[in-house]
Structures are given as structure tokens and as C-alpha cells.
């Protein structure tokens, strides 16, 4: 894999909040067509690392490279334009707009029509069709006209995923997409991610706690602990590794899915 250029790479990426180093010299490169899961205990710096990659935070030092280009100083908007898509851990939508309107905003973003002020938004058939397509994709078609604030939590999580899909990025960053979902909703999202994986040119990064999910989906697992990258490798190897057992799963290796059931 080393001969292939990495789609996304972080080089000695570091951020400090006061004296606390939340992400500490993390260097890691990702190839297209792979799904990497980032695991680690709460507060390990997973989401912070995501924020540094997608531009919500500016690193204290180090770089983020997208297809070899240094994007460390670009705004979030510019990074999204370059194909970096992000779904959020805490649901982060437009609460008073309908589900369809939310997805439509994501679709319309790539059409670059935001400056058009003389045409009715609803007249863009192609945008509407694609928005409905993604809404159906996460099985929310019947909720199209419901304002997001009226949707149950699980549906909001699905919509969050639909927004990311609708951006059609090269890099998908999922931050605990199944958190707070009911048991029967989880497979919907996981199928969706598994299908994405089949497209060879996409890179998927996933933060996830449910170990059974991680094991079945991932090509590779990266373990963060206290902001540092402590392990990186094949799923089987990582899960068996004593460092991981201690850092993430706790000493009792028998209860790996404890957090998932919470």
C-alpha cells in the first residue's frame, strides 16, 4: 500500500488546549477503498482528531493532507468543497427545516447555486430528486415533510448520515453513527456503510464503540489513547493486542461490548 498515494494523511497532528494535549503527534495515512475504524476510550481524542481533519479546529502543529495537498489552513467550507465529508456525533441539523429541506441543502451545496436568488428553491427538480433519493436511502422517505425537531432521535441520526451521503464526498467521516439508535435501526446504517465500502474510490473513517460492528466492517483499526496513536493494524491483530486490551477494553477482555449496550 505504501506505493499508492494516500488520500488523507495527518502528519504529527497536535492540538493543545491550555496545558492539555488532546491530540498528540498523530501521524497516519489512509488509502482509497478502505474503511478504518478509530477506537479508544472516551476522551482519547477521537472526535478532536476528526475536528482537526474536517477543519472545525485548527491544529497547534502538524498538517492535514488531502490527496497530497496541505489543507491545514483551509476553512471547513473549503475542505468540504474538496471532498471531505463529515457526519457529527451529536446530532447537528437544521431543526426547524423539514427532513427533505435538510438533505436538499446538502445536495445543493455541490451544485453551487446558493447565490441564485431569483428562482424558487423547489423548482430545482434534479436537486429535489436526489434529496429524496438519499432520504429513501436511510429509509426516511415517509418523513420528508416533517420538521427535524419533531423527528425521534434515531431518525435524526439517520438524517445525519443522509446529509453526509448527499454531499457525495471522497472521504466519509462517521462519528459514532449508530450512537443512541435502537437495535433494529443499527443494521440499516451499517448496511449503508458496507455498501459505501464497495465503491473503491471512497475512503471511510469511522469512530465506533460497538466491537462487533468494528470487527465485521473494518479493514484496519487505529487505536487512540490519551491523544496518542497507540496501535494501528488489522482488526484481528488489534483486538488481540494486549496494549488495546488494557487501554481500551479494560483488563477484563470478556466484556468488550459493554459500552454498546449502554
Amino acid at each position, binding site marked *: 500500500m505504501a506505493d499508492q498515494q494516500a488520500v488523507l494523511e495527518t502528519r504529527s497532528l497536535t492540538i493543545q488546549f491550555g496545558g492539555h494535549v488532546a491530540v498528540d503527534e498523530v501521524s497516519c495515512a489512509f488509502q482509497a477503498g478502505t474503511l478504518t475504524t478509530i477506537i479508544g476510550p472516551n476522551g482519547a481524542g477521537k472526535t478532536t482528531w476528526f475536528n482537526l481533519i474536517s477543519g472545525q479546529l485548527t491544529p497547534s502543529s502538524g498538517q492535514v493532507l488531502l490527496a497530497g495537498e496541505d489543507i491545514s489552513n483551509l*476553512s471547513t467550507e473549503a475542505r468540504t468543497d474538496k471532498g471531505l465529508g463529515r457526519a457529527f456525533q451529536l446530532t447537528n441539523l437544521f431543526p426547524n427545516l423539514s427532513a427533505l429541506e435538510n438533505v436538499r441543502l446538502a445536495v445543493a451545496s455541490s451544485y453551487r447555486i446558493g447565490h441564485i436568488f431569483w428562482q424558487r428553491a423547489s423548482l430545482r427538480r434534479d436537486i429535489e430528486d436526489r434529496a429524496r433519493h438519499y432520504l429513501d436511502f436511510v429509509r426516511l422517505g415517509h418523513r420528508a415533510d416533517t420538521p427535524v425537531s419533531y423527528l425521534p432521535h434515531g431518525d435524526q441520526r439517520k438524517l445525519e448520515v443522509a446529509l453526509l451521503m448527499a454531499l457525495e464526498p471522497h472521504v466519509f467521516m462517521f462519528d459514532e453513527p449508530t450512537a443512541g439508535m435502537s437495535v433494529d435501526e443499527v443494521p440499516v446504517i451499517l448496511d449503508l456503510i458496507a455498501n459505501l465500502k464497495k465503491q473503491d474510490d471512497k475512503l471511510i473513517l469511522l469512530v465506533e464503540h460497538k466491537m462487533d460492528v468494528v470487527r465485521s466492517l473494518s479493514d484496519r483499526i487505529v487505536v487512540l489513547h490519551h491523544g496518542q496513536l497507540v496501535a494501528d493494524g488489522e482488526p484481528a491483530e488489534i483486538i488481540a493486542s494486549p496494549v488495546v486490551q488494557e487501554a481500551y477494553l479494560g483488563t477484563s477482555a470478556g466484556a468488550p461490548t459493554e459500552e454498546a449496550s449502554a
Partner: protein
Amino acid sequence: MLQSILSGDLPRSRVLSVALIAILIALALGPFLFPGTRAFATLGMICVFIIVVAAYDLMLGYTHIVSFAHTMFFGIGAYGVALGIGHFGSGFGAIFIGILGALLLSAALALLLGLLSLRVKAIFFALVTLAVAFAFLSVVTQMYHITGGEDGLRVRVPRELGPAFRPLDSVTGFDLFGFLGVLFTQPWNLVDGFRDAFFTVRFTGRTLMYYALFLFAGVIFLFLLRLVNSPFGRVLQAIRENEFRAQALGYRTVFYRTAVVILSALLTTFAGALFALFNRYVNPENTLNFELMIFILLMCVLGGMGTLYGAIIGAVVFVVAQNYLQDVLGALSEAVNVGGFVGSLIEPSHWLLWFGLLFVASVYFFPSGIVGQLRIWARRREMRQTVAEHQTESSAKERLT
């Protein structure tokens, strides 16, 4: 047809539709339905404030940008026309130059405000606009030799827009409220009341100016309605709802916010220019005062933020209350005729107290404004109906099985 004129954003409430149609008729036929100069001035101010409040709502209601510099832009437009006419004489060319200059100044100031302050958080932006507006007010008051200071400037409008110009002689109007008054209080005098209700309309250049104002208010309102329902308007709403996420979707929110501030400023400037031509007198009090800013804010909130129709309702309710609540109180205090504390409470000059109470009550009970509340009620009604239909359907099915 109606769908495309209103850009697909229908009133969505039967009461609101009726109210809007009534307002449209009242404004369109106003000079022929309501005699007297006060009624005429009220009609004109409603049209001016429809533009001003709708433009303000574009910022406040649709994008959640709180600005207190709105009257500054209004004043720039008003003084622009006054100074243009003062320097170049009473011609349409002078008006044009005045408006153009005012628009350029407003655009520059709005751009500066946008670029300087939109990167800071909402409350600081509001404070910056407040400071700029106060600075502008004191500059205008100080520069006596140009602006007339506190005394302001008289606007010598072209003859065609003034009271001396009489394009039509002896037009007959029908005093609607006078007739309704007779109808309800002395129904036995109906025939006389009907005959007396006809009056001669003084159709002058000022009437023409009113219709120009009415036309501009209508066109600008429909333009804004189109704007907020366009892709651009959707992005504004996204910024209002969750700016952080709008950025994560790839929208350059600073561009949109700056564009909205400039557009709102330009429309308000234009409204100020129309006001100067209609009112024929500008001074800091009627164009730049902070009280006026509060009034604009009140109209916006009262009508319903984030609904352009709220600008119409808010402007009508407020301007009518401003002009006629005193009469109501006057009639009340005459009828009750008590002295002391209670008497002073219903003193006509204390109308703002009562308006304030009404305002507090309306915000408390209808936080989404009059239009917002009407839409909520309409929606509830609709939902009740669909539920009822479902119930009758399912009970019919039960009976079948």
C-alpha cells in the same frame, strides 16, 4: 399564477389570507376609502414600514443577524433625497442623484459592517451596529450647516409630487368607516349615512406619490418573498438554524451574511428615500432616532419573525395603533371621565404604555408573532381534520369487518 407571484409561499392560514386581502384592498383604494390627512399619512407610513420591516426581517428573522443600524440606512436614504433636492433643485434628476448617492454610501457602510463584524459573535455585532448608528446620528445632528441639525431639512419635491398638482378634479370617494359607524350605531339612518359617506377626494401629486410608494412596497415585498424562497434564501435559513453545520456542508456563510446585510441596507435606504418624498420633511427624529429602531424591531417581532407576511401585519398593526390608539383612549377617558391615577392611565398621550402592554402580552402568548401563531392554529386545525378523517375511515372499516 398566484403560486408564482407569491413564490410558492402562500399565507397558509385562512384568517391570514383574509387579513392580507383586506389590507391589500385598504392600501390600494385607501385615498378613496379613508378621508382626512391623518388617514392619508397613516397609509403612506404603512407602505414605508412594510419595506423597512420586511428588509429588517430578512436579517433578523431569516438569518438571525441582530442589527441596530437599520435606521441609519433609512436616514441615509431620506437625507440623500433631501440633500439631492437641496443642491440640485426640485427635479427628478436631483432625486435620482440623491438616491444613487445614498445607495452607494449605504452599500459601502454595510460592506464595512459586514466584513468588520460578521466574524465576531452575534451580540458583539449588535453592539458594533449600535455604536455606528449612534455615531452616525450625532454626526448628522452636529453637521448643522449641511443637515440642518435637529431642525432637519424640508424636501421640496417636484411639482408633480406636491399638493399643488391636480391631475384629476373632483374624484368621489366613499368613507368606509363613516358608513360602517352609521350602520352600527344608527341603522335607521342608513340611507342618509350612505349618502353622507361620499366625499370629494383631493387627488393631488401627493396622491400620486402615495401610489408610487404603494407600488414600490408591493414590488419590493414580492421580490423579498421570492428571495427567501430561493436557493439563496434556503441557505440563509440554514445559517439561522445552524451556522456551524451550514459551513460543514460547504457554504461560505460569511459571504451570505455580508450579502444579506448589504441587501437589507439598500432596500431600507430606498425606503428612506421614498419616505422623504412622501413626508417632505426629514429630521433626526423621524429618520434616525433610536426610538424608530425600537419601533421597527417591535413591528418585526409583533408580526412574526421569519415570516415576511409578518412585516405587513406588524406594520399595519403598529402604525394604526400609533395613529389611532390615542383616539380610542381619548374616547374612553371622556366616557369614563375619572380623575386621579386611573384617569391618567387612560390619558390619550399615554398610548405607548397601552401599546407596550399589548406588545408584552402578545410576545408572551404568541412568541412566534401574529403570523406565526395564525399558521400554528391553521396547522393544528388541519391535523385535527386528518385525524378525524382517519378515525371515520377506520371505524367504517371496522363496521365492514
